[in-house]
């Protein structure tokens, strides 16, 4: 029963949602909407477990004075400040939550994202070493694409580099991407079938 009931529920839910894709009728749209609401309800309940996990981990870190434990105060402070700004009516009415989101969280996230530029440079330095014939082809392709994307490359080659770059991006690149996409699509469908039929049960902790 412990095995069969979850597999049965999974099959029913997956089957109904698959059928829903082909049926535009309102009754099936409602099935989709209701299942999304259920998903959100489950998510709301699980967030309490998530917060408990986060608080427990950082309290333990502070208590045992683990490496860089001081930062845990900032994490916990940030967590409680956001909760207070969203739940305390006086703070919420003054727009404290939005202020914290727009002036602290968003700039910090943007800073992390901007690091990507430097990481791309360091990864490209390693990836584009001409260690073998294939790596050399990759390097040459990268050089043409980079030169084709800047005005200097256009002026140097009288439009040849942009044309080569466009060809590389639109022909071999798209062909490879589509091949991977077809594989991904079939892989997903196959995996979904395995889950529906109860062959794949890793989400049930191997039951």
């Amino acid at each position, binding site marked *: 029963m412990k095995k069969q009931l979850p597999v049965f529920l999974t099959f029913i839910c997956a089957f109904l949602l*698959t059928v829903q*894709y*082909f*049926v*535009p*009728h*309102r*009754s099936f*749209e409602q099935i989709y909407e209701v299942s999304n609401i259920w998903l959100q309800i*489950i*998510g709301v309940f*699980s967030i*309490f*477990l*998530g*917060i408990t*996990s*986060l608080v*427990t*981990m950082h309290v*333990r870190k502070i208590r045992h004075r683990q*490496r*860089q434990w001081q*930062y845990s105060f900032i994490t916990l402070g940030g967590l409680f400040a956001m909760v207070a700004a969203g739940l305390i009516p006086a703070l919420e009415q003054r727009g404290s939550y939005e202020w914290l989101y727009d002036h602290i*969280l968003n700039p*910090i*996230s*943007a800073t*992390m*994202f901007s*690091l*990507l530029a430097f*990481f*791309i440079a360091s*990864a*490209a330095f*390693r990836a584009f070493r001409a260690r073998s014939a294939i790596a050399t082809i990759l390097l040459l392709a990268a050089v043409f694409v980079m030169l084709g994307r800047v005005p200097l490359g256009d002026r140097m080659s009288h439009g040849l580099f942009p044309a080569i770059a466009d060809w590389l991006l639109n022909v071999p690149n798209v062909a490879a*991407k589509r091949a*991977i*996409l*077809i*594989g*991904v699509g*079939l*892989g*997903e*469908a*196959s*995996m*979904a*079938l*395995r*889950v529906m039929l109860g*062959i*794949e049960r*890793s*989400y049930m*902790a*191997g*039951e």
Partner: protein
Amino acid sequence: MLRSWLYLGPLLFALSLPRGAYGQTLTAADTPNDHGKSITLSWTNPGPGTHVDQFNLFRSISSIGPFESTAVLKGEAHEYVDACEDLTNGTPYYYKIIARIESGDFEYPVAGPVVPEGQWFHTGKTVVLVFAVAFSFLVLLMIQRAREGRELYVRPIAGIDAVDEAIGRATEMGRPILFIPGISEASEVATIAAFTILGRVAQRTAEYQTRLVVPNVYATVMIIAQEVVKSAYLNAGRPDAYDEKDIFYVTSEQFPFTAAVNGLMLREKPATNFYLGKFYAESLILAETGFQAGSMQIAGTDELTQIPFFVAACDYTLMGEELYAASAYLSKDPLQLGTLKGQDIAKLIIVLVLLLGIIATTFGSDIVTKLLSIRL
């Protein structure tokens, strides 16, 4: 359905009505492939070369009115979809349109009755249905063959073969293993695939007594990951070694999660990092930090744009479908291997159809493109 038949008489009558002086027509029909509450209207120009300033569209539940204004459209418009929640499925509607031209207003003959209704099948998705049924049949056939005991060959996947080596390295170095099951929800297929590999990794770490750290973006993913790891430790006979606190929730925000995991990598210096599941812009930030921390790295994702980043920064990368094949490859279960075989045959069929399409298009025929088109 019965109502449609009842209204067929008036509809035929409406169609037999004489057209306007210049042959102007207004046609109204239920919008196909929707949940109802929508009617598609189309009309011709009031006269050859006549400039129209605007069209005023009116709707009524009776052919004699009263008509209420529904929309005001530009003079170039020749089609309009009247979709609103005010429309009731099963109720007949009548439409009229007035064109504002230089010499005054021109009224088209009333169109209707037309009954909006929801459809039980989206005809634009027929190709998808046919392929889905054929693919499912193929997979089930292959599963049946596998059940009969036929041996199925699966090509080696370097990234999965390296899992044991990566765990052995961590054990020798006495450092932890970091496993990130993507940054998507548990309902994502890639996340489910990551759980399978997590189970395998956890079983080995339990046997070798190596610490396994799993930071999570979603609490639901954390709960499942905890169960998967706990179960693996139990199977390995080491339930005492399982520490629930090593599988923890960080945050559901993308870049704060990345910052937290980067900090973890630089502090703990894990011997091996696994990035398996759905990843977006954080993929390279994580993988490069892992490289700088000196970790061996195995990645796998179905996110096309992130695959090159992982290939550049990691030791092994499972590309697209290889991530999904991992569970079958690791378990060697004939049933699971059967689904892989079905997948391969479907791929072959797709390649043949592609070739057919290429040949047909080369010779100026669009028959294959038309046959396989999907209207959403």
